[in-house]
């Protein structure tokens, strides 16, 4: 087992390294200049470039970059978004709101998705199922930014019961949540529906299996049988849907953070790409990639624990 985990971690680090390389090259080949100020004397411009190794060939710059990252966890300095500030520090200041937003929406979407999926499966082909299934499709289909703008228009403008913007100064956690609820809902609907749909499919399959029949013959009620036997088995593959969910939510929060003025990573990413702040963009790419790789790793490893057969195949 330990060997398997180490192997997976090794593979992940290799992937991460390749992603780092790819990010560096993609972004550095973009046609943007980092220092744009015609009023600066040329020799000072050169000095500045030399300071950041920008005067050297790209490949040498790449070596500096890799060396910095590997030996000192040094990602460089921001030049446009927050001039002079260490990129790592910028990330650190932006991560909490994004993480709060994403975790809260996962915390809402996973239980709700499970509940709705179970209800739909138990009431299969009845009105309840049809209604839930239809809502599921709507939630999956309608883009989160459409939801967000509808929610914002209705609940902050037409019926102002929620604050328009995320309130970073709220005294209590409840206050913070109150202002963050709309973006959380907008982000949670899609993942919730994905989980519900997946679970419904899994449950329906398990419910028709022999061992459940046996459980029923033992005298368990339908609900008991479902919760004790079918449910557990169906939950396991759900872990698999969580990977795309996490990356998906991160993508969705790009726009939603901007709409609700959440000072998180989403706006930062777009801003840094648009402003041509290369070091920051590269670091952000690496950050997002690391998150999704870690998620994949965790799910892989937990699979390995659950089902040794999968280990042999190496996750594929």
């Amino acid at each position: 087992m330990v060997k398997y985990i180490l192997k997976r971690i090794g593979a992940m680090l290799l992937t991460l390294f390749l992603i780092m390389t790819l990010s560096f090259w993609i972004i550095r080949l973009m046609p943007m200049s980092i220092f744009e100020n015609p009023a600066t004397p040329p020799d000072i411009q050169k000095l500045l470039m030399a300071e950041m190794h920008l005067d050297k060939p790209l490949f040498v710059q790449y070596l500096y970059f890799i060396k910095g990252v590997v030996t000192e966890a040094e990602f460089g300095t921001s030049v446009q978004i927050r001039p002079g500030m260490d990129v790592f520090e910028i990330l650190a200041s932006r991560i909490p709101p994004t993480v709060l937003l994403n975790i809260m929406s996962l915390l809402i979407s996973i239980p709700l998705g499970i509940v709705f999926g179970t209800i739909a499966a138990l009431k299969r082909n009845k009105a309840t199922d049809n209604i839930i299934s239809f809502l599921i499709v709507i939630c999956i289909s309608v883009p989160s930014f459409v939801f967000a703008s509808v929610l914002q228009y209705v609940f902050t403008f037409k019926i102002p019961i929620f604050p328009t913007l995320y309130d970073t100064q709220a005294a209590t956690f409840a206050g913070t949540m109150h202002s963050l609820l709309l973006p959380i809902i907008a982000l949670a609907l899609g993942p919730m529906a994905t989980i519900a749909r997946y679970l419904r499919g899994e449950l329906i399959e398990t419910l028709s299996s022999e061992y459940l029949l046996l459980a029923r013959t033992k005298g368990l009620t339908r609900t008991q049988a479902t919760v004790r036997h079918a449910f557990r088995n169906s939950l396991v593959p759900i872990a698999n849907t969580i990977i795309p969910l996490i990356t998906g939510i991160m993508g969705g929060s790009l726009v939603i953070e901007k709409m609700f003025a959440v000072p998180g990573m989403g706006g930062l990413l777009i801003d840094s790409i648009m402003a041509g702040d290369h070091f920051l963009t590269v670091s952000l790419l690496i950050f997002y990639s690391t998150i999704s790789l870690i998620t994949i790793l965790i799910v892989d490893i937990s699979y390995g624990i659950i089902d040794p057969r999968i280990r042999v195949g190496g996750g594929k």
Partner: protein
Amino acid sequence: MKKNKLVALILAALFVLMTLAACAPTATSDPTDAPEATDAPEATDAPDATDVPEQSDSEGKVYRTYLTAEATTLNRQDNVDTYPDTPMSYCSSYLYRTYPTEDGKGYQYIPDLAAELPIQMDEEGYVWQIKLREEACWHNGEPINADTWMYTFRMYLDPILANKMAGMFSEYILNGYEYFMQGTSNTVAWEDVGIKKIDDYTLEITFADTKTQFSACTPFNGADVSPVYEPLYEAGMNESRTETAYGSTLDNWMGCGPYYFDTWTYNSIHIYKKNPNYWLADLFNYDTVEVRIIPEMNARVELWEQGMLDSLTPDANTLEIYLDDSRLVSYPSLSVYHIDINCKNPTNPISGSVAYRKAMYHAIDRETLAQYIFGHMTPSGVYVNELAGIESENHETYRESSYGKAVTDMVESWGPYGYSPEMALDYLKQAYAECNVSEDTVITIKFAVDETDSAWKACAEFFQQEFPKIFNNMVQVEIVTYAGMSATDFKSTGDDKWDFSPNDWTRGASRIYPHQCFYYYLSSYGGSPNNYFDEEFEAQFAVCETPEIKNDYEKLLPEVQKLEEIYLEKVIQIPVVQVINYELFSERIQLPVSTYIPGFGWGFIYGDIVE
């Protein structure tokens, strides 16, 4: 086995959450930056709390405003954005601040960090002494004296640091520009620069030009000439002294203004609390100032509607709602939106022709654009803005003078604001003839516009429909969009990529010298947004720059007229609209002035809240 699965699943879920959550604390404890300000207590807990009883129980008067984007840094010396000006104006200070005159119609300079207005030391007005306020201090209580200022100016003009704002300031000071621009060559010593310490509370400034008492104050009013706090400035410096992290966070910045910078939640909100110990504290009425960062226009309008903002700058669409609103005020701006034309596009056979430029000048329906696309602005067929010259000695703007009017009359004689489809077509045919292009050639004009710039994009779409009509289908417009780079960057990707490039920013526009807005169109300016240069135009600009003309407004006006005529004759670029600013003020805010004062504005900072 099943239990295992569940446990594993829960573990997995926890692990995900923990790794996500763990990012935050581990990251914040990163020691790379944030110098330990051991000798400087935190700015926020500086007040002695003897005479501030109201802070604890109620918030008092709160002024609520917003910024459309966050200040990237509080080091205004090295930042060209205007966003840091808001926090700087409240939490930092200058030698001289502007304040409305008694009648509320003009403004004057009053000493702030200085003790009194500058004292003239020579007959011509080159040398001035500035007495410093002895009680002036940082928010941590340390004094601000001549040494602080010597350090501030030395760093500001440091040739290696190459602060982005220093170019402008350096030109005021004797040898300042030479010192700043020397690069690594070491030809000008700091001792030769016209800033001297006389004693602990006296500075002596030698200007490059002669000054009046009023104009001697001007260079020392502005966020870029706020004092910098030496220990933190030095702590943020990198090894080769090319950059400092000063001002990137509140931990490495020190204020000295009428308000404490209490909270800075990046990209979300600034909170400033009144500094009761401030020497001019009586001038400031708000107890708290809240500045939200709101990038979305809709969100701003919603907050305004809910009464949570005290002012709002409406965009063209929002303006429609408030047109009749008594809370709406308007005033002209220094900006004239214009379009730069590429004269070297290899794919456009007539791009080098002046007749082509004239054709384009006459093809623009400025009235329609100003009214509908840019939203209630003033169409303008000329480039010198409506405010230019208002701060000259006789307070007459160039546009209102007979010289400026002569030019506008000439423009009107062509058509409304220069728009004349017939002339446009004639000039185009002339351009075709000049360049030996057959009449059935279709010219495609590439209108290069930033993806996110919706007004200019709409304008380009409008041209797309209009140009083929005006030019009998001889001209069509292609819209080329770019993102993630500045217009300058985009243009540098190749001369064949663009023909038109819109420009919102009237750089160098001055309220004193009408001709100065043309400075950026000279070949001597390296970063010129244009690639068309005209000798006659440059010679005329040089005439305007000669001291005896520049400093005599009456002599300057006719020269500017000549300059503007050459500008129109050669169509250096195409002016489109004179920007009008609109502003909404809530009813609870009382401003110190009754009308907009050019150069001073509305004086929000001295406003009061009346419930």
